[in-house]
């Protein structure tokens, strides 16, 4: 306990506490987790805001993400330039959204971006097929995958344009109470 840390200024820590769902201790713990991925790249002093970015391969080697089928999309969505390489801010943001304190709308927004593989702001049939294949590790036949995707679009598409927009997705999430507990990574 105590304020003896020298990694961040007090103002930086306050800003992190205000902008993420984490407390001071959790932020410091997350910083040490970030640093453990590459101790030689990440300095112990962030008071002068160094521009350090860790490559995607290191992020994807974390035990929490290593076996997740969507780890690449998660890293891309939260990274600075959409390529999977993350700064400390991106790292904190990612785990803040995936923590249990984040509200449903915020999680739904980012979940939508994760499942939108081609970044066209719609989850179309090809996005869905990729999602289902990742979830089942290509165990289903292409006809079954196609059938599942058609049924999903039929169920969730409210404005009948053949794709899921953000509001279709959010509308569907409201009907699924498990979303908050499954879209959650403990760190």
């Amino acid at each position, binding site marked *: 306990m105590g304020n003896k840390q020298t990694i961040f200024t007090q103002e930086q820590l306050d800003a992190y506490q205000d902008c993420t769902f984490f407390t001071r201790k959790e932020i410091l713990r997350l910083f040490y987790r970030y640093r453990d991925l590459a101790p030689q790249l990440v300095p112990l002093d962030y008071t002068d805001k160094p521009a350090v970015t860790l490559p995607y391969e290191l992020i994807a080697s974390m035990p929490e993400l290593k076996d997740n*089928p969507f780890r690449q999309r998660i890293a891309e969505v939260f990274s600075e330039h959409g390529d999977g390489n993350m700064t400390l801010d991106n790292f904190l943001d990612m785990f803040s959204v995936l923590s249990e304190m984040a509200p449903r709308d915020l999680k739904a*927004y980012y979940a939508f971006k994760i499942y939108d593989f081609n970044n066209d702001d719609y989850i179309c049939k090809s996005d869905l097929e990729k999602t289902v294949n990742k*979830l089942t590790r290509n165990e289903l036949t292409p006809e079954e995958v196609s059938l599942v995707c058609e049924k999903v679009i039929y169920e969730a598409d*409210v404005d009948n344009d053949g794709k899921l927009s*953000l509001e279709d997705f959010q509308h569907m999430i409201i009907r699924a109470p*498990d*979303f908050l507990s499954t879209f959650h990574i*403990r760190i």
Partner: protein
Amino acid sequence: MSQPPSITLHVPEGTESDGQEPSPDSERALHTSFHQLILEQSSLIEAGLELEMKERDRESPACLAPPDACAAAWPEPGQGEQCPGYSSASLQILASMPSRTIGRSLGAIISQYCNRTARLRRRSSRPPLQQLCRAARPSLRQYDLDTDPARATLEDKWSLLVKELLSLSPYQRSQMLLTLPISLAEKRTLRRQVNRQRGLLRQHAQHWAPSSPCGWSIVYVGLGCRGLWYRLLSLLRTAQPWHYTLKQISGRFGSSVLSYFLFLKTLLMFNFFSFLILLAFVVALQAVYPPPSASPPPFTGLELLTGAGYFTHSLLYYGYYSNVTLNDPCTPGSKGSACPPAAPPFPYNMPLAYLFSVGVSFLVTCILLVYCVSCSFRESVGSSLGDLAAKVFCAWDFKVIQRRSVKLQCENFCTQLKELLAEQRSRSHSQSLCQRLRHCIVVLLAWTLALGSVLGCTLAVHHLSKHMHVVQQEQRAQGSGRWQQEAILLVLPLVVSLLNALMPHLYNLLAMWEKQDSPVTQVYVAICRNLILKMVVLSLLCFQWLSRSVVCSTEECWETCVGQDLYRFVVMDFIFTLLDTLFGELVWRLILEKRLRQRPEFDIARNVLELIYGQTLTWLGILFAPLLPAVQMLKLLLLFYIKKTSLMRNCQSPSKPWQASHMSTIFITLLCFPFFLGATIFLSYTIWSVQPSETCGPFRGLETIYKSGKSWVLVLQKSNPNITWFAWVHQHLVENTFLLFFTSGALLAVIYFYIQVVRGQQRVICLLREQIAKEGEDKIFLMQKLHSVYEQRERRA
């Protein structure tokens, strides 16, 4: 609210014969008028589109698909009516529609949140229907059309957002900042700008306000409070025990098994608060001023099981507590010396303290329970039974991180999808009459068996307790040893725990034989039967304890006897849970691994119901054994580690779908409604109507326990005539039954009102869904018309 651009219709003359109004059937005339408008707007759109494209290229060249690639991202023409080969111009317009740019363009997100904060600021109880807006969908009412030449730049929108945030209260501002879906770096910039503006505003305000130490101290107190609040929050979060253990469990087994351990933690919290209240106000003080009593018999190990012997005259039970005012030298039973004229230093009325502590601990438990129920209900509203879309997007548990468990989860998911597809295919074949009849008969038979077994168990327990009582009398008459007498006491709890442990397995088998339609219904039915058994057995036992016709009928201090009985039940429950873990998980795993090469699964529903049953026993016994919450806390702590070890060694991840938040809500509601309510009724009846024993406890000699409170009010009235109003309030409001009926009636009316409001809102939701579907059709229609306009232009060019 922005006004849509004014449209002037130029109906060209001469297209129809004179004197005839152009009717809606004459399409060409109407379309020519729109043609002009579309031409005007499309030129503006293209100009705006170039600007937007430049912005987008600046933002993120790598991940954004340029509009030309949109054509590639579309499925091939002819594959659906949705996009029949639009021209690239139409596709460019499509790409710049507001609903498409919401997810990508920062400006659109900021506009949306500006409107949200503006609405928060002038919020009335419910927003009017006309301004109702679904989460991110912009409607024409709230946004400037992209064709508006005076469109705000990104910087303008940003400063507008800062201004709107400043006008909110600090709590709303912090919530809005947290929920904004922009990156952390941008949030920090926003926060910095808001704080800077706030500092400027404060400086401005301070020019006018007199610089007083009061104002400054308020500012510093505010800052100090904020720091204190953050520190308290972090303390609360770090005080969360078992963070790493829970992460291990959820990493291997997922959210479903985790919900059992979280439920255990919740029960621990309830017991902790009850224990704290009773310790502070009852137990500790009685320990400091022990009543005169005979020397207790020597301690043997058997007391831990039976709760009798050494423990009978100890702090553990009701009989130990004195009925006098502690620390008062003027008590009638004191050493007989004269009363000193000075007032006693700190008199403590023990009976009153006992009654109020028990009441307050129940009240605190009630508040905490209702809060937990409302929290989990809010999160779990909605049903996803058989909803394929919800399954695809929400069934993957991100908490599972172990490789083998992830692989298993993939396989389970695959199986579930195949089952859902097969189910949807077979739903088209309805069952024949014969099959339905057979299914009905099977269900009826299963229910008859279940209810019959419940009845059988109840009768068995009833006859056993009578028989045990007779045996006990004989033993006492014969004067047999203490060991035998105490062993007899253990038989009834043993048999009840045995029944509670074995019958659920029978119900599971019954449920498997019944073959319900969905596995979720199977779980519900098994829970229901288990619940009925436990409720009926507990009601029988409560009736026996209160009527004292069989149990504790010959004891002088019957409350201590009942407390001991409950202690024995709690301990036996713990022992049988251990045995169940040993045989149900360890031995079963050895058998299954040899035969089927697989491990047993953790039966979540059965284990949670056992926890609920144990907690109900504690609640029933608080009045008779004030230290019972401490015993329960110890039991739960041991249970956590034992269950966790057994889980890690013997069980495999669950293969059936389990809606974790839905089931958690059901369990906490079950804890609240039949069980806590039953315990409260039991407690109320004991306090209001049962005569306490004459020779022991804090309420000896009174008619009922409640009379001690009443006599205290009378004493208050006599001692200080200024507070007769308190006695009047007590007599006319608390004891008046009419008020109780009136309050219940008012409560029912409020509940009915809210039910009607919810129904009305559901109808509104249906209407809005239809409206959204219609607007989608409108969009397709307009796109097709636009496309035809462009085609005509191209053909002409």
